[in-house]
């Protein structure tokens, strides 16, 4: 337990020193929430009884989770593996699951901080009203963390080089972002795209977050989206475990 704590501290320290990770996980999402807040102001969309910024904000949280869970995880892990760091560590008594545990806990902490930061900015700067029960919000954010971290680690099993990891994780990130209704509502998409978009984890988590954080809906009303996100989480986790490699 003490060693796990030290690993978490190490990962956190390394994270805070990586300027590109900090940019993508902190500055990038905050930039978008500020940008959309300024663009939309108090604008309403006609298809939903919410202010546009309230409609958009949960998607920015999804985006933030993806920067940590997919981008930082896939490129960070593949790079450290390629550099031979895990190989060197395997000569010490440090257990491999402790390395992994340290990374997961650190990313989870970052995800919780990112979410809190975005909510605070939304509330203070743009007067977004948060209706959801905190425990319920925490649970769905945790589901999102699990889902994207699983996808991130799944990618590390598929990708060999750090260069490729950077590129591929970025493509996955932007695909999930644009098709997930994060910058514009999926209601604006043509039908065939909307069907495809509907089964993506980013879309379902976007809907779940909006329902829970902004609209305070119960599980009964979003069971379909919860099921999709849960399915992605479990499925990706299983494949990630199968494909996982240290060298």
């Amino acid at each position, binding site marked *: 337990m003490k060693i796990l704590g030290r690993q978490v501290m190490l990962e956190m*320290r390394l994270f805070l020193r*990586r300027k590109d990770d900090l940019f993508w996980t902190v500055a990038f999402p905050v930039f978008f929430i500020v940008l959309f807040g300024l663009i939309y102001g108090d604008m309403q969309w006609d298809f939903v009884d919410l202010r546009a910024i309230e409609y958009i904000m949960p998607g920015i949280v999804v985006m933030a989770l993806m920067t940590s869970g997919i981008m930082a995880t896939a490129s960070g892990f593949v790079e450290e593996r390629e550099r031979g*760091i895990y190989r060197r560590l395997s000569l010490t*008594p440090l257990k491999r699951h402790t390395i992994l545990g340290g990374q997961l806990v650190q990313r989870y902490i970052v995800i919780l901080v990112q979410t809190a930061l975005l909510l605070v900015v939304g509330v203070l700067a743009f007067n977004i009203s948060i209706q959801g029960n905190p425990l319920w919000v925490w649970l769905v954010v945790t589901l999102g963390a699990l889902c994207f971290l699983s996808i991130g680690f799944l990618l590390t099993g598929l990708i060999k080089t750090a260069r490729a990891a950077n590129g591929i994780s970025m493509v996955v990130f932007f695909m999930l972002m644009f098709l997930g209704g994060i910058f514009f509502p999926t209601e604006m998409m043509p039908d065939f795209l909307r069907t495809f978009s509907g089964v993506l984890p980013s879309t379902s988590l976007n809907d779940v977050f909006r329902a829970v954080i902004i609209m305070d809906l119960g599980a009964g009303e979003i069971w379909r989206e919860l099921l999709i996100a849960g399915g992605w989480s479990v499925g990706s986790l299983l494949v990630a475990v199968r494909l996982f490699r240290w060298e």
Partner: protein
Amino acid sequence: MSTVVEVKDLTKRYGNLIAVDGVSFSVEEGEVFGVLGPNGAGKTTTVEIIEGLRKPDSGEVRVCGIDALREPARIKDLIGVQLQATSLYDRIRVKEAVDLFGGYYRKAIPTATLLEEVSLTDKQGSYVDGLSGGQRQRLALALALVNDPGVVFLDEPTTGLDPQARRNVWSIVRSLQERGKTVILTTHYMEEAEQLCGRVAIMDLGKVIALDRPSALVAAAGLQSTIELTAVPETLRSALVEADLPGRISEDGDQMLVYTAKPSHVLKEVTRIAADRDIDLESISVRRATLEDVFLALTGKQLRE
């Protein structure tokens, strides 16, 4: 003295290539044992199997009496390893890296002591990616020593270092030996093996082709001394070849090498033959034969290209 590392019939294949082909040797406590050979001889694969990084196709490895292939976890506290290319997190400071690795072991040498030993005290606050090659190598040494191991593996510890940095590493290895540690090092520098190692295993194409003290290897190859003559005129060359000198002659252009066990005798003969013909020798030197010469004699090829 007791045997600290014992390797028997180690074999490792990669497809059609036999990287390690029936390697056996044992290393005694307190010894500095060298594994010498050209690139691709199987040195690194051999030591990485002992360290537990690679699984052999067959063979046995015992480290401090423990079956290292069956119980690799048990030897981790007993050994220290410097890999050929040590990579660390780039955004970690020198002191943090040593603290970090020390924390992984049950007992660890204080970071300040270790940094002092590898002369990195004034670099302790620097990021790893800002270190020079020699500094990185010394940090890798510090990490290999952090658990105060009885057996230290150094894989090509001075490759790519300038002469000064190389000497730094050598003096650290000597101080390890003075403290009774067993050191196993691989190198393709014969000078390094001669300077540091009590015994040397010479490897080529996955096999150990000779194993002994450096001086004994030189003697066994019948190469106690080498007399080197440069810019030798044609007439003198043929006269020397016909002179039936007590040694073996090899010619290379106008340069001649005489490998001999009787250097003063050969020297006297050579100068007499030259003086009789009124030829002045421009350059003549006597040197001890080296492991380089041994490798050449055993394999017919140069250690370094």
